Every structure is written in structure tokens, then in C-alpha cells.
């Protein structure tokens, strides 16, 4: 293991080459000490290079992390976003000096509108959950604007991402859980039971978190709208539907996307992401300010701040522009047809792995999946004492990033596999071979799997200790 940068520190050592600073007065007491590392440039370079080698990214290998769409992040996108003309710009600069950048934002919005069928998108939310929050505030503003103050509830399926119910609370709603059917679809009867004039909306992921298309979407949409509610599309799984079915046509009034999933921008080890929110015509007045506009007569792109019914601002400026530029470049290179092919190939790859693992692993929902699917290893647990987490750790020994484990919560001992469209058949085959081999190991030498990983730089971590004796700050430990 690499030690901490603080442990390289030697009094008096420095890396920077800044000029001497003159004596100045801050008008308040100055601090006596600041314990930051005192290191040389090569210390910094070696330390963070070593740390990078203790990480695993899409560039390191296959990353079938379900629900996260870990596709290849094109290098050209990185290069474009880093150009000084885009990266070194103060957000308070006048619009007329930002013609190129505003045009990129405007085009991004228009391309998203075409693919998903919406009247407008805001690019301001900085991540998926931030988009959910924004979308729910738009729903809230819409009902209040109609003078309807009774709608205090949002319905959320039990299989939903945890961000959905958490976003409801932040947006001032009470969330009500809707059950799933044994096949993973929404329990229509339970939905009907909960639909009344206190429901503001229903949040849904389609395909759902089991990777299955919600076949009853037309009926669900009718029911929700008949009750006066709005339908919200959690776009976490949008990689399966581009060019196949527009969420707006399926009846979703509001939708958020994750540019760091579907549109190939890198996830950065936990962000920055970007979570644009699309709305139908009637919800446009409530979008957060500012919005990017184009005046065709004078060929002028500008930020519009005057939107009297807007929910307000959700970010200090215009969101993660540096991320949006990468998604713009990606869409430009794919074109509309390319984005359809993205979804086709993503679904092909998921079904291919599913077909190859069928029979050896238990696939609880046996029908054509979309971009991802779920396997359950509860039989392995019962017979051999091997859990989903053990299989995940064993995959690391074979050089893979594991799939998502223990999500969705409605399937016990599950692994959720999402290969994405950018992986070759050879890569998929190699992964399938390893999965089949691990199934053999479970039967012949379960301890080998239970005690994995064997090749990682660290062993199994004591997570109980991490919570009970929190060590969160080097200077306090």
C-alpha cells in the first residue's frame, strides 16, 4: 500500500516556484500553523502515480457495473473540454463573448430534445440526483401554479434507486412505495390503490432496475395522468432506449439523464457528473434559470434569466459545463443513428452474456433483457455458503471490476451485470469463461471463493471498525 502524502513531508522542502510574497495585512488575526505536506515535485508525482495504479478504471479493463453504464470514455472528448477557450472562462463574462461555448450548450440541449422527445432541457444539474431534485421541484411548481396544493406525495417503486425517495424528501414531498410484481414490473393494482388527488407524480426507471422494459407503460401513464399526476423518468437506464422509444412519447412529463453514464463522460471516481432535465412544453416555464436561448434573427446565443415561474437556481452558475462539452462531442460523433446503435449494441451485449451464463447461474427474470440483467446466487449461498459479495471479490482476482451487488433490494444475493456497447465479443467471452469457472470453483473449492480476493493489494476490510472508531482525518487520528 502507498503511504499518505503527509508521511513524505520534511520541514523546509517545497515544490512550488512562486515569487516571494510581500507583507500584507488581512485585518483579522493570521493563523499560526498550517500542517500541509512539505514535499518536492517528484514526491507529488510519484505518490499520485502510485495511487493511480491502485485504482481500476474503464481504461484498465472490463467494468460491468450494473446501473452505472461504464462505457469507454473517448479521448477526443477530454482533449476538447480542456482547450483554454472553454476551460479558462469566467461564468460572469458577457454572453456575446461566449458565442462558441453557448452554442455548444445550445446544441447539446437540442440534440437531447431530439433523442428523448422533449420541448426543452436544462443542463444545470451537476449529477443524476441533482437532476431528480430539479425535476421534482418542477413538478411541485407546476401543481402549485395550478393552485393545486393537495399534491404532497410522490410514488416510487420498491426497486428504485435510493436517490429517488431521498430526492422526494428534499423537494418537500412524502414518498410512497409502490410494490413490484414477481416479473419486476410495477404492481398495477398497488399503483391504483395509491393513486388519488394527493399524488403529485410517479417516478419510474424504464427499463427498470432489473434491466426489464416496463411493458405496461402505456397503462401506467394513463392511470397516473388520469389521477392528475405527472410521470417522472429516471434516466439512469437510458442507454437501452435511445432511438428505440422516446420517454416523452411513453408519457413521461419530466426526465433526467446522466451524461456520465449514457453520454460517455468519465465518472471521475465519483464525479463530476451532469444530470440534464428534460420537460414537455407545459413544464417549460418552471425550468431553473438561466436557460440558453438563441435569437435566430441576429444569430445570437444568450442566457435568459427572466423566467417568472422558474423554480430558481440549482447551481451557482450553469452546471458542469466541462462535462457537457464532452457529451456534446460524443453526440456529434455518434449522430442520431449512432445513438440508436449504442442502445442496440448495449442490449445485444447484455443478452449475449445472459445467454452464456443461463443454466449455470440463476437468472430470476427469464425474458429478453435490455442493457443489463440480474442474477441471483441465493442457491450458491444455501448450498456452499458463497455470497454475491464473494463472487464479486473473486472476479477481481481475474482482473475484472465486479458487477453491482445487492441492488436492486428486491432480489436476494444478486449481481447486476451491464456490459455496455463498447466491449468486444472477445472481451465478453473472456468474462463469461471466468464467470463459468467461478461457478465451478464454488462447487469444488468454495473456500477459495469465500476468501477472495487473493491478488488485491488489501484483504477484506474491517468495515465495522471503520464505523465504530471513525478515522476520517489524518490530524485527529
Amino acid at each position: 500500500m502507498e503511504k499518505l502524502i503527509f508521511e513524505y513531508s520534511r520541514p523546509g522542502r517545497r515544490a512550488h516556484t512562486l515569487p516571494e510574497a510581500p507583507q500584507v495585512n488581512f485585518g483579522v488575526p493570521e493563523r499560526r500553523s498550517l500542517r500541509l505536506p512539505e514535499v518536492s515535485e517528484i514526491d507529488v508525482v510519484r505518490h499520485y502515480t502510485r495511487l493511480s495504479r491502485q485504482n481500476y478504471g474503464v481504461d484498465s479493463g472490463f467494468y460491468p457495473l450494473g446501473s452505472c453504464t461504464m462505457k469507454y470514455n473517448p479521448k477526443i472528448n477530454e482533449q476538447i473540454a480542456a482547450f483554454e477557450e472553454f476551460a479558462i472562462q469566467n461564468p460572469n463574462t458577457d454572453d456575446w463573448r461566449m458565442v462558441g461555448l453557448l452554442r455548444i450548450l445550445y446544441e447539446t440541449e437540442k440534440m437531447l430534445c431530439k433523442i428523448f422527445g422533449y420541448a426543452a432541457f436544462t443542463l444545470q444539474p451537476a449529477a443524476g440526483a441533482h437532476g431528480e431534485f430539479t425535476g421534482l421541484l418542477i413538478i411541485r411548481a407546476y401543481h402549485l401554479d395550478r393552485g393545486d396544493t393537495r399534491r404532497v406525495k410522490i410514488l416510487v417503486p420498491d426497486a428504485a434507486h435510493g436517490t429517488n425517495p431521498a430526492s422526494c424528501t428534499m423537494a418537500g414531498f412524502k414518498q410512497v412505495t409502490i410494490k413490484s410484481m414477481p416479473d419486476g414490473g410495477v404492481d398495477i393494482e398497488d399503483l391504483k390503490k395509491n393513486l388519488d388527488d394527493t399524488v403529485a407524480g410517479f417516478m419510474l426507471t424504464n427499463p427498470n432496475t432489473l434491466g426489464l422494459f416496463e411493458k405496461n407503460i402505456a397503462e401506467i401513464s394513463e392511470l397516473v395522468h388520469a389521477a392528475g399526476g405527472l410521470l417522472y423518468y429516471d434516466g439512469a437506464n437510458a442507454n437501452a432506449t435511445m432511438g428505440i422509444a422516446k420517454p416523452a412519447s411513453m408519457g413521461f412529463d419530466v426526465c433526467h439523464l446522466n451524461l456520465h453514464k449514457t453520454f460517455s463522460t468519465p465518472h471521475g471516481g465519483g464525479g463530476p457528473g451532469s444530470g440534464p432535465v428534460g420537460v414537455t412544453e407545459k413544464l417549460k416555464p418552471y425550468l431553473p434559470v438561466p436557460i440558453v436561448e438563441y435569437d435566430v434573427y441576429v444569430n445570437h446565443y444568450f442566457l435568459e434569466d427572466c423566467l417568472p415561474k422558474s423554480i430558481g437556481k440549482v447551481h451557482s452558475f450553469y452546471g458542469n459545463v466541462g462535462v457537457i462539452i464532452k457529451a456534446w462531442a460524443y453526440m456529434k460523433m455518434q449522430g442520431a443513428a449512432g445513438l440508436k446503435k449504442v442502445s442496440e449494441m448495449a442490449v445485444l451485449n447484455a443478452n449475449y452474456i445472459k445467454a452464456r451464463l443461463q443454466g449455470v447461474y440463476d437468472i430470476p427474470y427469464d425474458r429478453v433483457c435490455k442493457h443489463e440483467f440480474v442474477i441471483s446466487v441465493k442457491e450458491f449461498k444455501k448450498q456452499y455458503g458463497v455470497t454475491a459479495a464473494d463472487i464479486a471479490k473473486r472476479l477481481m482476482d481475474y482482473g475484472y471490476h465486479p458487477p453491482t451487488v445487492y441492488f436492486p433490494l428486491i432480489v436476494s444475493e444478486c449481481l447486476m451485470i451491464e456490459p455496455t456497447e463498447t466491449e468486444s465479443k472477445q472481451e465478453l467471452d473472456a468474462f463469461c469463461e471466468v464467470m463459468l469457472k467461478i461457478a465451478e470453483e464454488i462447487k469444488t473449492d468454495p473456500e477459495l471463493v469465500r476468501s477472495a480476493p487473493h491478488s488485491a493489494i488489501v484483504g477484506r476490510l474491517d468495515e465495522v471498525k471503520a464505523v465504530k472508531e471513525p478515522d476520517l482525518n489524518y490530524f485527529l487520528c
Partner: protein
Amino acid sequence: MAYFPHTETEVRQMLETIGVQSLEELFADVPEKYRKEKIEDFPALNEMELMAEVNEQRFQQNHFKYDHCFTGAGRYDHFIPAVVPQLAGRSEFYTAYTPYQPEISQGTLTAIYEFQSMICELTGMDVANASLYDGATALAEAVSMAVTATGRKEYVIANPLHPNYAQVLKTYLTPRNITAGEKIGQSTAAVIFVLPDYHGLISDWSQVLAEAKAAGALLIVCADPLLLSVIEPPQADIIVGEAQPLGLPMSYGGPALGFLAARQNYLRQMPGRIIGRTTDDRGNRPFVLTMQTREQHIRREKATSNICSNEALCALTATIYMSYMGASGLQTVARLCKANTDYAMQKLGSIPGFSVEPGEHFRDFVLHCPTDAREFRINYLHEDGIEAISLSDKDLLLSVTEKTLRESTENSSIDWIYGCLEREWKN
């Protein structure tokens, strides 16, 4: 169209393995009425065409570039050493997901632990989280923490806050009936003190601290991390802020880097990811995501926040910047910024008719103009290649950093604007 590795033969083989005839069959569960809909087309460019298009937009940007930028107000053009983007740009960092699997994520986890520690050291707080979207949303999350901790529902803004931040607070908190109050009192959950304020003014917080304490409210300080490197950190309950000045380009406002640090007793109310150090079964001391029961994926509707993805790569970047700079580097940058602010204020304030807002300022400062500031800015400053913000008809908000060139330097921006103001106003 790009990034599709399969050959046509392979697609056929795969369909056969799956047991379907065509790709369309894989979408048979999608009702036909949706599938039949046309998607409005837009063309695909190849990489060479894309670069040509990008260069056109770059040219547009360059064409209207100003020579001397005095725009700050929330994002600042600081010097970024070459080491910083080069290391943060290693793809093992930037192409990874959230470090759910600690065995293969020690790189990100270790760096974020270092980030938390450095933020604690800068703020004088006990615990910090792994980052939030930006300074404005970090401030909103901090108020939300104070509401949970006190059971009260009002916040009071003690000194001039960036208007965008105030708007974000309103958007974030109104739905939960948390509102801005005028006076500190028994219903105040949090008092917000900004350091420096929207105008760059550094003021003494001791009075506000005493008032907050007396009312049983939490003191939240929204502080600039560079300024914190030189001054004694306030005795606050929570300190938040925008860490873009720590090695991140302005990027037209985002990605940014919100930070949040607090006293130990507020740990369980904190939003977002937290990295902790523990042990493994081999005697190592590795790092792991911890205190997760606060978070949305476990506590769902009762979570402290809905945040999932944060700004991890920006936190890594700031960590590399702070490691490289060390205390002496950070403090040198802060002092150079202050010296340039002092110089610019003294010089521009000395022009007859013009004056500056009094007090110690850091980077941003207000210039009172003898004429309509908005018109002056457009008609004269822009003509001379100078960019600045107008606050009102009377005032300009100017900003300098350690990069702003000053006396005895060729192309000194401060001398340039001095010359322009003097000349234009005389005419």
C-alpha cells in the same frame, strides 16, 4: 458513429447464441407504437470533422477575447502548476466509478482521505466530507444540517452573500419550509457568515458568532479556502465553501468543488460520501467508504441528503494542488492576491472621481464610479479590452489574483486599467 467493436459476423453469431433472429427481436417487448416513431435526425461527424467544428467554436471564443480580465465574483483565474492537471488526468483516476469496491479503489479512497484531512486542517474543523457539487449547494446542505440539529427552520445571512448563492439557498430550502429570516433569534437554525463577502470584504466575525451562540443557532461560515490558509479559522460549527481556486480551471462555472467541514458532533447529520481508515485481515490500514447509513442508498427517504455522485475528481485535483503548494505555496498565493488587491484599490481609488469600498479586501473589490457604471463599462472599458462586472449604476466589481500583472511589468493589467480609467474619465 464510433466505438462499436463488433464485426457483422460477430453480431450474427451473438444473435444466434441468444436465440433470436434479429436485433429488432431484442426490442419486441417495447410496444410497437413507440418503436415506429421517427427520431429527428442529426448527422454523425468523424473525428477530423469534429475537430474542425471545435476549432470553429474556439475561434469564435478567441475572437471576442478581452486582453485584461478583472472578472471574479465566484470563480477565479489562479495559476495552475503543470503537475496538477497531468496527474489528475491519469485515466485510472478519471475513468473509475465511485469507490464501492475498496480492494481496487485505494487510489481514489486514499486521495479523498487526504482531501478530507487537508480541508479539516484549513478550516480547523474535525470532519469533512468527500465534496459536494459547488459552494452554493454546500451552503444549502449546511443549512439543512443546522435545521436537523436545532429543530428550527430559519436561516439568517449576516453579510453580503453572492446573489447566486442566495438564490440556490431559496430553491433548495423553500420546499421544506426553511426560510430566510431577518434577525437572529429563537427561531434561527443557522447564521451564515461569508468570508470574504460578495464584495471581497474581510470582516470580523466575533460579533456574529456571539449573537448566534446566544440564540442557540449554529454558525455556518462560507469561506474561501485560500483566505483560510492565512487567517485564523473562525470558531464556527460548520464551514463550507467553493474550492475551485485550489487548482481547478474556472470552466465557465463548473465542474466546481463544494466542500463541507464540521465539528465532530454533527458527523451523523453530514451529507455525502465520507472516507474512513480501517484495518484489513493482513495488517494493512486501508481506506473505505464509511458512515454509509446516513446516505440515500441505505436510508432512502430519511437520508441526510440525496447526493450520490459528487465532484471526486475535482477533490483529487485540489488535493494534488495543495500537496504541491504546501502551506508556503498556498499562503504565498493568498498574500500575492492580497497585495495585488491592495495595489489595485489604492491605485484606482486615487483617480479623481473614483473611490473604492473601504476595508480589507481579498481579490474582489468595489469601485464607485463618477458616472453610470454600466455605460462606462460598455462604452469605455470594453473598448480598451477590459472585462469587469457592473454591480449597479454606480459600482463596478473588479477582481485580481496572483496572476494579475502589476507595476513595472510590461502589459501590467492594473496599470492598464488605471491608465484607461484616468484617460477616459478626463475626456
